[in-house]
């Protein structure tokens, strides 16, 4: 484990370095507060630090305050090691953010025990953080595909919309629906169906940029948020995705399953609209893609037209919607 020693007095620093090394620590020694501050700001900074109180540049108390103000995680467990050892000194040191306090000259056994206590605290903190991150992941990701779940991808859309409005840029969304997915489940069963959804998710993730967001919106429906793209670019990217999804059958234990997807594209062009408006437009375009034969991409028209389209689709009884394959009347 790495440990930082900030000590301007060479004899103390050398002793600390020797004993800490003999206990298995990887010791980094600096002789002033500013050098310690440089190291402690790094993401891979040592999680244990022994700081002298009085040092040139920045003293131990200032360092404690700056570290605590800088971040909560990753946590730095700080032991102040100093000759200042009155009750008020100890109170001041702990109030500044130190976790422990040891008077000079240090007793080796006491220092070793206090550092062991510090490691226990850090270990517990690691467990708590790992547990919290696991819960956070579960709350924001779809269990089957590992993609962002509906709420998380909607959050991404909301954030990107706000950014696009702020920066006066455009952004696109793509609503994706796996064609004839009900047939896949009916024909092959739910496990191969799950494999299809998982593979579609993987294929989309493989094709989008690192700052695009892909989420499972529900059932066999996915939502992709594509920042800084105009209508044509969003359409082209969606069409590439469509081709990529269809380029090879999904291999499952029950055999290869040929799949295609239909997509509806909508773009924020600076009009006042919320995430629901944009999703509604993409959804209306997706309906058109389904109606027009599937395995295709359709662009949303204007927001007004999209609303009219949605209303028209909603007003149709299932018998009015035809499908070339004679599959269920609903376009999905």
């Amino acid at each position: 484990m790495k440990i930082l020693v900030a000590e301007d007095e060479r004899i103390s620093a050398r002793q600390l370095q020797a004993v800490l090394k003999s206990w298995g620590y990887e010791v980094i020694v600096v002789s002033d507060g500013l050098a310690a501050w440089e190291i402690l700001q790094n993401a891979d900074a040592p999680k244990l630090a022994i700081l002298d109180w009085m040092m040139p540049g920045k003293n131990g108390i200032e360092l404690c305050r700056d570290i605590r103000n800088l971040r909560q995680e990753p946590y730095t467990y700080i032991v102040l090691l100093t000759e200042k050892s009155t009750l008020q000194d100890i109170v001041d040191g702990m109030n500044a953010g130190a976790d422990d306090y040891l008077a000079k000259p240090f007793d080796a056994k006491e220092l070793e025990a206090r550092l062991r206590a510090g490691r226990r605290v850090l270990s517990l903190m690691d467990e708590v953080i790992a547990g919290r991150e696991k819960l956070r992941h579960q709350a924001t990701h779809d269990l089957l595909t590992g993609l962002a779940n509906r709420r998380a991808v909607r959050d991404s859309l909301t954030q990107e919309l706000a950014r696009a409005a702020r920066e006066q840029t455009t952004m696109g969304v793509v609503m994706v629906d796996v064609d004839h997915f009900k047939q896949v489940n009916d024909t092959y069963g739910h496990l191969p169906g799950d494999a299809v959804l998982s593979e579609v998710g993987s294929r989309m993730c493989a094709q989008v940029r690192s700052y695009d967001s892909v989420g499972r919106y529900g059932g066999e429906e996915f939502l992709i948020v594509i920042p800084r793209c105009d209508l044509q670019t969003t359409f082209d990217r969606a069409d590439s995705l469509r081709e990529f999804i269809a380029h090879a059958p999904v291999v499952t234990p029950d055999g290869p399953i040929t799949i295609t997807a239909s997509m509806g594209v909508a773009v924020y062009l600076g009009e006042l609209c919320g995430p629901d408006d944009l999703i509604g437009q993409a959804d209306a375009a997706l309906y058109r893609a389904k109606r027009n034969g599937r395995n295709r991409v359709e662009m949303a028209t204007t927001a007004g037209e999209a609303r009219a389209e949605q209303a028209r689709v909603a007003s149709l009884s299932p018998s009015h919607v035809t499908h070339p394959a004679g599959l269920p009347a609903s376009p999905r």
Partner: protein
Amino acid sequence: MTIDRCDQLVSVMAFDPTPMLARIGADRQLYGDLVQMFHEDVPLLLGDIRAALASHDQEQLTLAAHTLCGAIGNFTVSSPYDLAKQLERLARSNDLDNALSTIDALTRGLDQLGAALTRSLFQAGG
């Protein structure tokens, strides 16, 4: 404790390296290095202290006196550690006249401690 009294005590004080050796796992090579550092650093710190006194730089005087305390405290918390502590206290209260009067006794005490440390290298088997 008066400065004169400290001076007398140092002159008859036998230095015991046992606590320091216990702290560093009886590493005699390291002990020798630490004593060497003492001999190198103490004159420099005394120089810093004198310079700070000459320029009435209270902050620098306090820091140098504190560092000197730390250096001595590694080996002993008897005199001349007490004198260095006294100097640090005087520096903090900006009592530079009395701080100046401490320097000579402190220097003598450090010389005696330095000699005792050198002798201890042989006692410690170094």
